[in-house]
């Protein structure tokens, strides 16, 4: 028997969510779910791990903060200290208050941009990338569940029973 991929198409996100729970409770692994908008609780139902992007953003922010501290220290204290308007420039801790705005901005700059780059990288999003969605209606109003299995009959019946409005089966060579 050849391997088949089954696409169950749903009209409503709540029906889909229940179906996902049903399918998962039968120990059938769901390959992917495509939806036009984020569905609350779907990641949990699919058993997806929490994303660590926020932690990454925090680390990037720390890098930005450190970079800014080094930049202001190197330029204002180490490389060429200057007396500007009588403001102290011979010890970092004395001058530091004036550098806080720049340090803050650099922290945000690094954190935001590096996080978004990580996000695009992890989701494989870049100009020229082709969409992997099997049905263009999934950006409109349809929700699609993708399952790979040998036994397409049982799965099709299960999906139909749990509310799928349309079932498409494709053979994988």
């Amino acid at each position, binding site marked *: 028997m050849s391997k088949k991929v089954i696409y169950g198409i749903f009209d409503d996100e*709540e029906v889909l969510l229940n179906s996902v729970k049903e399918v998962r409770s039968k120990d059938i692994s769901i390959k*992917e*779910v*495509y*939806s*036009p*908008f*984020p*569905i*609350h609780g*779907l*990641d949990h139902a*699919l058993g*997806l791990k929490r*994303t660590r*992007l*926020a932690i990454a*953003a925090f680390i990037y922010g720390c890098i930005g903060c450190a970079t800014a501290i080094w*930049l*202001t220290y190197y*330029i*204002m204290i180490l*490389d*060429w200290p*200057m007396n*500007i308007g009588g403001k102290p420039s011979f010890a970092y801790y004395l*001058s530091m208050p*004036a*550098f806080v*705005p*720049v340090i*803050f*901005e*650099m922290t*945000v*700059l690094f*954190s*935001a*941009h590096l*996080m*978004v780059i990580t*996000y*695009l990288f*992890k*989701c*494989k*999003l*870049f*100009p*020229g*990338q*082709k*969409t*992997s*969605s099997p049905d263009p*209606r*999934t*950006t*409109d*109003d349809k929700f699609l569940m993708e399952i790979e299995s040998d036994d397409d009959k049982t799965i099709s019946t299960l999906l139909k029973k749990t509310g799928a409005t349309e079932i498409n089966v494709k053979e994988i060579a």
Partner: protein
Amino acid sequence: MQKESPIREPLILGDKSYHDITVDVAKPVLAKANKMWWIVFGISLVLFVWWILSVGYTIGTGIGVWGLNKTVGWAWDITNFVWWVGIGHAGTLISAVLLLFRQKWRLSINRSAEAMTIFAVVQAGTFPLLHMGRPWLAYWVFPIPNNFGSLWVNFNSPLLWDVFAISTYFSVSFVFWYVGLIPDFAMIRDKVNEKYWPLRKKIYSILSFGWSGRAKDWQRFEEVSLVLAGLATPLVFSVHSIVSFDFATSVIPGWHTTIFPPYFVAGAVFSGFAMVQTLLLVMRKVVGLEAYITIKHVEYMNIVIMLTGNLVGIAYLTELFMAWYSGVEFEQYAFLNRATGPYWWAYWIMMTCNVISPQLMWFKKLRTNIVFTFILALFVNIGMWFERFVIIVTSIHRDYLPSSWTMFSPTFVDIGIFVGSIGFFFVLFLLYSRTFPVIAQAELKTIVKSSSEQYKK
């Protein structure tokens, strides 16, 4: 699913299904522009050409073609800079601060408000650039190793803080906007018929970065939006605080005050919301989005305008009180001169437009009236431009040395760059409204079941 109290007014009117939202948002992008659009675009384009000519003349000849003199070294250019940056703040406030507060009404307006932010900051950026006189040396403001000896930028200077603040603000706002746009570009990509519009299909495929809406992508999308909102919120407050430091750290009477940061931020949000109203009240009509940008949205924004207008009003009065209470005669004179000196009319235009007129918003009849809101928003825009003019020009035109007292009068180049920048802004915004999904439709679909009219019956 999230449920919402039935008492709350719906945010989406009519029986809108997910598919209806898709169609409504894609319509302006896929359909031809109407006559109204071409008329407004034509006018904006004429103003934009005026801008190009004025800027060309300024760069070719030097900023001597402006009305600046030895006493008034900052005038319309910095006024316009602060005005445009301030306008930008509403977009970030709507998309970031309201996201953190879980305000659902932001979803119909955040895309356009963020677009406005980006286009406004573009306008703002041109003014300091032109004021440099030699804009081709603009890269000198960045701390880059150079061949002029160990000549670095000065991190003590608020003008340099501004460079960091504005560039961070612009780039982070842009990225925030784009992250939200990716799924919506994907929707348009899938709506475009490849047979009739192969080029359009290709462009939207590239713009959508191959978005496919996988469950993991959405999970990351929501996390990124939340963290970006968390970063953009302090960022937006810092940006206008830093802009205010340009003035507050100086020793000029009228500028040297500690209330400037909160005062400027409130003013920025105030003017920004007025600009959002100006743009959206027209857009909802022209593009046919009345079901999404409802009277309730208009009312919410009007309440923000009223609140921030009152904050600004309190700041004006605090300034006056502090000038008197400080006992510094220069400070006292600066404020007396503002209200009763040769620029008294500018001061009273500011007071009328910014403090008195928003009080009318206390009446529910008025704040839910579209025509009234539009007129008031224009008043606020004018008033906030005069606020910056009053702060900048009236503080320096009569300084410590009475022999250098003088007046400022703009030349046609000043006027050209200012009016032209409005044209430039509208050119960008009108092009945006025809080619971009003007509503964050993917995220809007998440509130259909909690906040649309059909589910509240």
